[in-house]
C-alpha cells in the first residue's frame, strides 16, 4: 500500500555542490493527505523526485509502497505506483487530444487496447472532465489542463499521487479544482502528497512536513505545525492569517482559547470572547 519510509536521505546535484537534501527523514502512512511545505529552493521537489526514482538515491534509505527505490528491477512498478503532476500544465501534454493524452501512460504500460477507453473515461470522470476525450488540451483553462494531466496519472491507478506545486500557476478557481480533486482521491484511499509554499493549502492535510535548506525542520498535524509562527518564519513562510491574528491579539493582551487555523474558527473564537 501507499506508505513512504525514508531515513537520512542526502542528495547533491553536483559533486562540489552543497547538499540539496541533508539527512531528511519522512514517514507517511497509506491513505494520508500530506503537505510538504517550504520556500522556493528548500529541497521539497528534490525530495519527492526520489519517491519514484526520477532522482537516484545517493545516501540514506527510502522505501515507497514497500518497494526499495534502489531496486532497478522494480523501477517500472515503482513509476506506476507513484504518479506525479508537475507545476506547468503546458509541459505535460504529448498529444493533441485529451483522450489520447490520458491514454498515453496506459499504452506505455501495455494495458490491453480494449480496456483503454474505459479507463480513460473513468479517469476523466474522476477529475470532473467526463466527455472531454475529443477536446484539444491547449483550448482548456489552466485548471482544466492540470486536471487532464491529473487524469493521465490517475488512469494508471497509482497508490501514491504527488502534486509538485501543481496549483502554483493556476488562478484561484483552478487551484480550488485541483485541491478538490486531491481531497476526493484521499477519500478513495490514495496517498496524496502535496508540495506547496501556500500554507493555507496545508490546512486540510493529515500531516504537514516543513522543510528549510534541505532539512526537515518540523513534522506534525496542521495544528502542531501551522500554529507556530516562529517555525514557519524559519522556513521563510508566513503563518495563515487567523494564526497571525491570534498571536498579534495575544501580544495586545487578548488571549483566545485556541489558535484557529481557518477564518471560520477565528470568528468562533472571537465570538466566544465577546
Amino acid at each position, binding site marked *: 500500500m501507499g506508505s513512504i519510509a525514508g531515513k537520512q536521505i542526502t542528495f547533491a546535484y553536483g559533486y562540489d555542490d552543497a547538499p540539496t537534501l541533508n539527512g531528511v527523514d519522512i514517514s507517511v502512512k497509506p491513505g494520508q493527505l500530506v503537505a510538504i511545505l517550504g520556500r522556493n529552493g528548500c529541497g521539497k521537489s528534490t525530495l519527492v523526485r526520489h519517491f519514484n526514482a526520477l532522482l537516484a538515491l545517493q545516501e540514506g534509505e527510502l522505501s515507497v509502497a514497500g518497494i526499495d527505490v534502489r531496486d532497478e528491477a522494480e523501477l517500472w512498478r515503482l513509476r506506476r505506483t507513484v504518479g506525479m503532476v508537475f507545476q506547468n500544465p503546458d509541459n505535460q501534454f504529448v498529444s493533441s487530444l485529451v483522450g489520447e493524452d490520458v491514454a498515453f501512460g496506459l499504452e506505455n504500460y501495455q494495458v490491453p487496447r480494449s480496456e483503454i477507453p474505459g479507463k480513460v473515461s473513468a479517469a476523466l470522470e474522476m477529475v470532473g472532465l467526463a466527455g472531454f476525450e475529443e477536446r484539444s488540451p491547449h483550448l482548456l483553462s489552466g485548471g482544466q489542463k492540470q486536471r487532464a494531466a491529473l487524469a493521465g496519472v490517475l488512469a494508471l491507478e497509482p497508490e501514491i499521487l504527488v502534486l509538485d506545486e501543481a496549483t502554483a500557476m493556476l488562478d*484561484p478557481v483552478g487551484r480550488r479544482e485541483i485541491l478538490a480533486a486531491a481531497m476526493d482521491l484521499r477519500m478513495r484511499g490514495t496517498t496524496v502528497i502535496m508540495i506547496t509554499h501556500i*500554507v493555507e493549502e496545508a490546512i486540510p492535510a493529515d500531516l504537514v512536513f516543513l522543510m528549510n535548506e534541505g532539512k526537515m525542520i518540523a513534522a506534525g498535524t496542521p495544528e502542531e505545525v501551522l500554529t507556530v509562527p516562529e517555525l514557519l518564519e524559519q522556513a*521563510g513562510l508566513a503563518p495563515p492569517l487567523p494564526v497571525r*491574528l491570534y498571536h498579534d*491579539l495575544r501580544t495586545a493582551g487578548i488571549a483566545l482559547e485556541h489558535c484557529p487555523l481557518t477564518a471560520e474558527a*477565528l470568528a468562533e473564537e*472571537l*465570538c466566544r470572547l*465577546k
Partner: protein
Amino acid sequence: MSFEIKSLSYVYQRGTPLETPALENVSFSIGDGEFVGIMGHTGCGKSTLLHLMAGLLPAPAGTVLIDGEDINRKGYDRSVLRRKLGVLFQFPESQLFESTVEKDVAFGLKHSGLSTKDIEQRVQWAIETVGLDYSRVKGQSPLGLSGGEKRRAAIAGVLAVQPRHLILDEPTVGLDPMGREALLELLVKLNRDGMTILMVSHDADSLGEAARRLLVLHQGHLAADGPIGQVFADMDAMADWGLGVSQSREAAGLLARKGLEVPQDITSYRQLLPAVLTALKGGGSP
C-alpha cells in the same frame, strides 16, 4: 493623466465565423502616481486591455492616451512610449537571455544614447533597487539565480529604462511568501517615488495590500471601478464575476456575520488587526 482610455473595443478575428469580442466600450483614466489593480476572470479581456494600453495591439475602435498623447496617432513616436512605459509580462524570468545579469539588465539601454559609464550606473541602480546584491550577481548567469531572484532581475531590466509608468501582469504568481513580500514592498516604494503602477492579478491578497484602486473586467466590460476597499466590500458581486477577495476582507465579513463590528471595506491585514482590536474593546457596550 497617465492613461486615458476612451470607448475602447476590440474584436478578435473580426469578419470571420470565429469573431470574438474581447473588449466592449471600456473607458477609464488613471492619474499620475496611482496604484491601480485590475482583476477579472480568465478570458475577461485583461490581456487584450494590457496589450492595447502598451501599444502592442493597435486600437481599431476607441483611443488610448498616454500622458495626453494618442499612441495610435499616425506619426506618434513609439520609441518615446517604450521609454516611459515599462511592461512586465507573466513569468518575465523566461525572457532573461544574456550571459550575465548585468548585460541582461543593460539590454534595454543599448540604443538609448547613454554613455557606457551612464549605462553602468543605471544598471547598478536598477539591480540594487530590486534588492539584489550588485557585486554578487552582475557577473553571474541569470539562469543561476533562484526563482524569486530571476523575477527581480527581469524587473531590473524594465526599471533600468526608468519608465514613468509600469504595467505588470500577474507579477506574484509562483513566488514564495518572502519573494512576494519583497516584490510588493518594491512596487509600493516605486509608487511612492512617483511611478504609476497598473497591476493585473488574481492575487487578491497582494492587491489588497498594495493597490488603492481596483478595476474589474467582466466579459469585456468594465464591471467595477473604485477604491479597492469599496469594490471588495461587495463580495457577492465579486463572486458573480468569478473573483475572490483578500483573506483579510473575507475574515472581516465572517466576523461581521458573527456580530463583531468590523468595517467591511478592509482589504489588508494592516487594517484588519486594529479593526478587530477596536471591535473587541468596544465589545458592543455604548
